[in-house]
């Protein structure tokens, strides 16, 4: 390849690091911090081999296998395996998301808004900006691998040997790089940042979904998913490095394809054709809600499909779960600490809780896009016309609630369409709807938090995302981290009953809604008082 194509890459890496360093530092500290906290908590929690076996029982079944991709034989479990079972897949997904966000921002987004054009007018190679972005990701992921390895070996118990810790961290790093490559390719295919996002997150979802089905029904299928490979190294037990090499090979292939595609296209162009837009605005589009719906509908529809498909994938494996639980003998059930309860239903409750956190993402994102409009200087277009601030914010708020409800319906429908085919005692749709909609007051509260920041404190909107992450961490590993009760209670999902096992505490639900109303009101007041930025 022409050496000139890479000219100036070094300086561009500096530029990209300066632009993104805060994001990188926050994400890496978050990922490493949570990993180390959990790694430290486990030995306290599981002191005897019996404790570990108890955990192994809950992990070593198709349900958890599907959810977290745990792939250890029952007799192999040690404290490292416990850690990897619970942490590896979700951390890998977090790393993948970091990679997607950074690559998207430093490829298609910079090109779409014209930053790449400025660079390309300098004596800089045609592939330099792209290469700088990829090299930045190499540094970020290798940095993660080294820091996490160091942290685990320094602070972890004996099982966290150099080799195992390095393997564990490397799986995270290399999975991240594969998704960096996937995103870089998406950026060549689509001519917009929005499309790049859609393709990359779609690919991540797809990898997860085929791994879910593959792990439960057909192992080979999982080998088509990077996440399938990521969970197949038996780290801390056999320490198999093959998945890392396979994923590294996959990364190299992706990168070569990216370079090839990039040289084939014009600046600003994508390789996929664009659909021409409509020439005229419909009368619905001319109303405020119509206009905002038009801006946000892509997001809502994409997330609806995403959540529906993911739920359907889980619904599809419920049949195997049912059989499995039916075969388990009483002793095992007792060990698994769930005697008497319907395990399938219990699993659904956990699943719905996790899915509901994903459901909240589009709602928060819709509110944040009002701030985005402001930053881009487009909010002016609203306010120079005779539209009140309350009406604009109110419309975004309404759309955000609508989105939350739709996503919960998507979970119910997704679980229902597949599970009704495979379960011997199908769960009816009504029960599923109740199970998901019981999360609404909690979701309203998160929406209230987001609205408060967008409305009154737009500089700190990041806090809403941090809160969503916090809720997820408390839900997923909160009981391990030994946090004070009041900290756990700050997470609104802690107050949602495990329906249908528990009855609905209406006063708590009312409280949540009340707090949500209060935050929302503050947001509206703040919004009507503050300056509009653009």
């Amino acid at each position, binding site marked *: 390849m022409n050496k*000139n194509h890479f*000219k*100036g890459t070094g*300086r*561009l890496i*500096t*530029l990209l690091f*300066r*632009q*993104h*360093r*805060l994001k990188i530092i926050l994400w890496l500290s978050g990922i490493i911090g949570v990993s180390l906290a959990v790694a430290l908590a486990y030995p306290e929690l599981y002191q005897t081999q019996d404790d570990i076996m108890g955990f192994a029982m809950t992990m070593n079944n198709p349900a958890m296998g599907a959810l977290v991709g745990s792939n250890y034989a029952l007799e192999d479990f040690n404290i490292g395996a416990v850690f990897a079972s619970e942490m590896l897949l979700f951390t890998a997904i977090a790393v993948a998301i970091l990679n997607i966000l950074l690559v998207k921002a430093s490829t298609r987004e910079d090109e779409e*808004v*014209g*930053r790449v*054009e*400025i*660079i*390309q*007018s*300098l*004596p*800089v*190679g*045609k592939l330099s900006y792209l290469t700088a972005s990829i090299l930045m990701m190499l540094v970020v992921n290798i940095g993660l691998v080294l820091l996490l390895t160091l942290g685990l070996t320094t602070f972890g118990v004996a099982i966290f040997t150099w080799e195992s810790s390095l393997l564990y961290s490397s799986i995270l790093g290399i999975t991240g790089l594969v998704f960096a490559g996937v995103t870089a390719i998406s950026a060549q295919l689509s001519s917009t940042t929005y499309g790049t996002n859609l393709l990359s997150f779609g690919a991540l979802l797809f990898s997860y979904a085929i791994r879910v089905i593959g792990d439960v029904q057909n192992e080979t299928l999982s080998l088509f998913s990077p996440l399938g490979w990521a969970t197949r190294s038996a780290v801390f037990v056999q320490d198999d490095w093959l998945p890392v090499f396979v994923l590294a090979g996959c990364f190299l292939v992706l990168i070569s394809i990216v370079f090839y595609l990039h040289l084939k296209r*014009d*600046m600003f*162009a994508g390789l996929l*054709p664009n659909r021409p837009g409509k020439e005229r605005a419909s009368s619905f589009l001319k109303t405020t809600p119509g206009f905002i719906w038009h801006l946000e509908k892509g997001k809502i529809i994409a997330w609806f499909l995403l959540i529906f498909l993911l739920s359907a994938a889980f619904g599809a494996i419920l049949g195997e779960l049912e059989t499995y639980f039916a075969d388990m003998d009483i002793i095992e059930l007792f060990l698994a600490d769930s005697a008497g309860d319907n395990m399938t239903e219990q699993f659904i409750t956990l699943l719905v809780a996790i899915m509901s956190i994903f459901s909240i993402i589009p709602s928060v994102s819709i509110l944040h896009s009002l701030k985005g409009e402001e*930053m881009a200087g487009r909010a002016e277009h609203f306010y120079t016309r005779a539209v009140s601030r309350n009406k604009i914010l109110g419309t975004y708020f309404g759309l955000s609630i609508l989105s939350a409800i739709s996503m919960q319906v998507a979970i119910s429908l997704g679980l229902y369409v597949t599970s009704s085919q495979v379960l011997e005692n199908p769960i009816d749709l009504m029960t599923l709807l109740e199970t998901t909609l019981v999360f609404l007051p909690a979701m309203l509260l998160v929406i209230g938090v987001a609205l408060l920041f967008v409305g009154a404190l737009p500089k700190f909107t990041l806090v809403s995302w941090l809160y969503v992450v916090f809720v997820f961490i408390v839900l997923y590993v909160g009981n391990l981290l030994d946090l004070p009760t009041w900290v756990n209670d700050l997470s609104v999902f802690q107050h949602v009953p495990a329906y249908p096992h528990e009855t609905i505490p209406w006063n708590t639900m009312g409280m949540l809604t009340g707090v949500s109303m209060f935050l929302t009101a503050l947001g509206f007041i703040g919004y009507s008082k503050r300056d509009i930025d653009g």
Partner: protein
Amino acid sequence: MSIIEIKDLTKKFGQFTALEKVNLKVKKGEIHGFIGPNGAGKSTTIRVLLGMLKADAGEVSIFGKDAWNDSVAIHEQVAYVPGDANLWPNLTGGQVIDLLLEMRKQKPNEEKRQHLMKLFEFDPTKKCREYSKGNLQKVLIIAAFAADADVYILDEPTSGLDPLMERKFQTHLLELKEQGKTILLSSHILSEVERLCDTVSIIRKGEVIETGTLDELRHLTRMNFETETMQPIQELENMPGVHQFEQDGNKSTFQVDKEFTNQVIQVISQYEVIHLSSTSPKLEDLFLRYYEENEERADDHE
């Protein structure tokens, strides 16, 4: 000798032909105006020239080197200012200017940099997310002028600048010309082009419809007049150089070829002027008339 040379350039976006056999030459030491309405193909031509878009047909070169294949070598001597700037929000204006200069292999000229910042009254310590549109534009203008280039390619560079800054920018361009630099200036503001340019190309719907020196294109530059006088003006209607004369009592509107302005003013002054205003023609008017004339000519031939 031509520094910039475009021969029969055709560029398509899918089915849509954005440029059709475009020809353009810019000689050393001249300022060449590239004018046309929005969507005419100015930016597309410039991006092909900068090796960002690949030509479908035709030859495009700067310094005799191929614009696509030798872009890196060419760009060492070329400075570019695009029309709207989006910079890296977390970097300061000063940082961006430094980085852009460092990416040329030249040592940034500190004195020049300081001088330009002062000239354009630019505060380099703010983050790019905080700058207004005009200030972002200044970052690019300073970075381009501080570089030691032979060719300057400017795509509607003054959009977003206030009139004072615009004037300073134009003065600086004339200084560069005196130093023998070659400049391609795209614009849709006719007055800007008239003030600065030696030669002009006019592009419309992807085709260059006129090219030449300003004098050769003089017939395209008429002034719009609006007058109100005590008595109705009579003899103007049939005077040479006066076009599209319309009268409504004591008020009249008409267009005047530049070289007849003086005679027309003398005539008007005899009628006790109450109100007189003149405006430069809008580019669109020019194109409309250009096409009318062409069609008339075509009709004559039949």
